[in-house]
């Protein structure tokens, strides 16, 4: 499988406290050494709780933030490009291949611009098209995302949430990127609209031959849409693998806890989720041992001392970071409901 994006040892720290002379004393560790690959034409679901660093990871991949160390490279026509090393013209030349979709459709569109200008923004920035070409291209893309091009002179406030997200899609796809990083694209929408947008994503992926990183905190949504799933906790990827493997055979205790917490409709049983107890470690300090050990139900002495390695002793594609190899079927109503 061709690799379209590769993230190697990515760290991102934010200055948290500066002393009187301006030197930083404490850092907030948002992304703590992340490694993964994105394959061509796949949707990789990146799931984790709020604050685990997935948005920051997404932003670093699209160069909105510069990584503190490590890099992320994209594969364009056989060349490996690290966007963070480029600037100016070259940066713009390759930036068109990787695009980001933002979470909140209400704040991600400039309320003062008509939709046509919003969607055409990448065209204005990267190329010089004339008025007719722009209108043509905008119409074309609007049709593809399911919007009526006749409304392109309207303003964002006259569209519903779902339609606005489509506008955001149109903006992201108008230059036919190869990679899309979607940061919680459906979290701000009603459930019924979520289904529409998810279908749209699947359809667009086929049509544009996209490779997508789908960031979400909602495992049920990620399940619908992804080919592979990566589970993120506290700035690190703790498990990654094909969707079926992750859902049916989770190897990391955190994944198990996440799965057990998904509410099942029409379920007569009570929600029997694994309740995580214990304190979150501080994001300001360096972590000793496994990052999940303070809340893990199965943690042992070794967990606090030694950082677990990324194993894939079960299946070639299924990696997880735990010292133990367990059968975590435990309390897993999600699993049973979907069997």
């Amino acid at each position: 499988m061709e690799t379209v994006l590769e993230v190697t040892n990515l760290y991102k720290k934010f200055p948290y406290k500066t002393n009187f002379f301006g030197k930083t004393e404490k850092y907030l560790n948002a992304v703590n050494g992340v490694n993964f690959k994105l394959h061509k034409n796949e949707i990789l679901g990146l799931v984790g709780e709020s604050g685990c660093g997935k948005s920051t990871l997404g932003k670093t991949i699209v160069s909105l933030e510069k990584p503190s160390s490590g890099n992320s490279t994209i594969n364009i026509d056989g060349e490996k490009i690290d966007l963070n090393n480029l600037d100016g013209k070259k940066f713009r030349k390759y930036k068109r291949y990787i695009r980001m979709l933002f979470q909140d459709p209400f704040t991600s569109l400039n309320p003062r611009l008509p939709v046509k200008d919003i969607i055409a923004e990448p065209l204005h920035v990267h190329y010089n098209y004339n008025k007719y070409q722009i209108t043509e291209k905008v119409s074309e893309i609007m049709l593809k995302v399911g919007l009526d091009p006749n409304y392109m002179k309207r303003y964002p406030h006259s569209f519903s949430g779902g339609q606005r997200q489509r506008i955001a899609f149109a903006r992201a796809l108008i230059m036919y990127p190869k990679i899309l990083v979607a940061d919680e694209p459906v979290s701000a929408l009603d459930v019924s609209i979520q289904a529409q947008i998810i279908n749209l994503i699947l359809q667009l992926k086929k049509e544009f031959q996209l490779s997508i990183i789908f960031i979400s905190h909602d495992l049920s949504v990620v399940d619908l849409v992804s080919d592979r799933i990566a589970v993120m906790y506290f700035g690190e990827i703790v498990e990654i693998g094909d969707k079926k493997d992750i859902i049916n055979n989770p190897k990391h205790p955190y994944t198990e806890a996440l799965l057990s917490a998904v509410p099942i409709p029409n379920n007569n049983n009570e929600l029997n989720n694994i309740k995580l107890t214990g304190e979150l470690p501080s994001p300001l300090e360096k972590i000793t041992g496994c990052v999940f050990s303070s809340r893990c139900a199965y943690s042992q002495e070794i967990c606090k001392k030694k950082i677990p390695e990324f194993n894939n002793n079960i299946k070639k594609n299924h990696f997880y970071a735990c010292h133990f190899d367990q059968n975590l079927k435990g309390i897993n109503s999600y699993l049973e409901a979907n069997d």
Partner: protein
Amino acid sequence: MSDLNQQTHFGLVFENFLKSIPGVTGMIMLSILIILSVFAEFFSPNNPYKNNYDHIYIPPSKIHFLDENNNFSFRPFVYKRIEEYDLETFETFYKEDFSQKKNIRFFERTWEYKLFNLIPSNLHLFTLEDSSEPFFLLGSDKLGRDVWSRACLSGRISLTLSMLAVLSSVFIGSFVGILSGFYGGLTDWIIQRIVEIFTALPALPLWIALAALIPPYMDSFDVFMIMIFIFTLLGWTLTAREIRGKVMSFAKTDFINSAKEIGASDLRIIFIHIYPNCMSHIIVVSTLTIPQMILSEAFLSFIGIGIQEPMTSWGFMMKNAQSIETLGSHLWILSPVFFIIFAVLGFNFVGDGIRDAVDPYTVR
């Protein structure tokens, strides 16, 4: 398909604005003032540019609709004035001669002037049928000139000066504020220190000091320009602070992030994304700063260090009221103050109206 071009933000705001009573009232008030100022000569029965030594310090004419027999006439009129001396104080006072009525006529053609300094005309809204009789709506000043006419004329200078001063302050202030809010960090820190120093300066004393610097022999137009400069010097800080706050509040929102992600240059982001979103705020701040400028200019001209001859402003017209004897005998010298109040109220109303129209959170 109808309704394809939906309302722009401006359209929405304007619609909202029309719903606000103070806003609309203010608009009307300002329009009246502007019309009076631009067409000052049209509204002046007397020539405000000519000194008339026969008619020094004449009190305002009394306009009647009812004559002494209580007959109502649609056409307002004035009685002929007789000058008399009070034998004790030697003060002149005026009595009305009820036997002689002088009618007020409308749309008459009398003294000549040039509309917009180009088109010659001699049409006036109202005049007295007998031009030898002094007819002053608000009395006359120490050179015999009609206070009403001069006040309308002064509007040109007072209003233009304040508006230009605010325009330039806001121009500089918004630019600095956007830079400060958008870039943050060191740029912001430095700019904030500079703003702090400027705001720590006491405004009025400083203006007095600066205005008093202007050599008395300087051309009045240059004085006008320097006054604008002086007001801008301290005025930009207010806008800078406000705009900085506004920019910081949305600099981290997603539409700015998405513009950055697309690769837009900073300049593009500032002009296409940030500026338009601040514009309403800028306009509100401007309309609410103009009144301060009007009041400050009035004071500086009043104490003699502002507008100079041959230009005239509302404050300048009241300069002679500085001596209590003059004021005591000729109270009408203060009439331009009504113009000032009218202007200030007008701008305040409009400013409030715009602010309410733009802010979605006010409950009407």
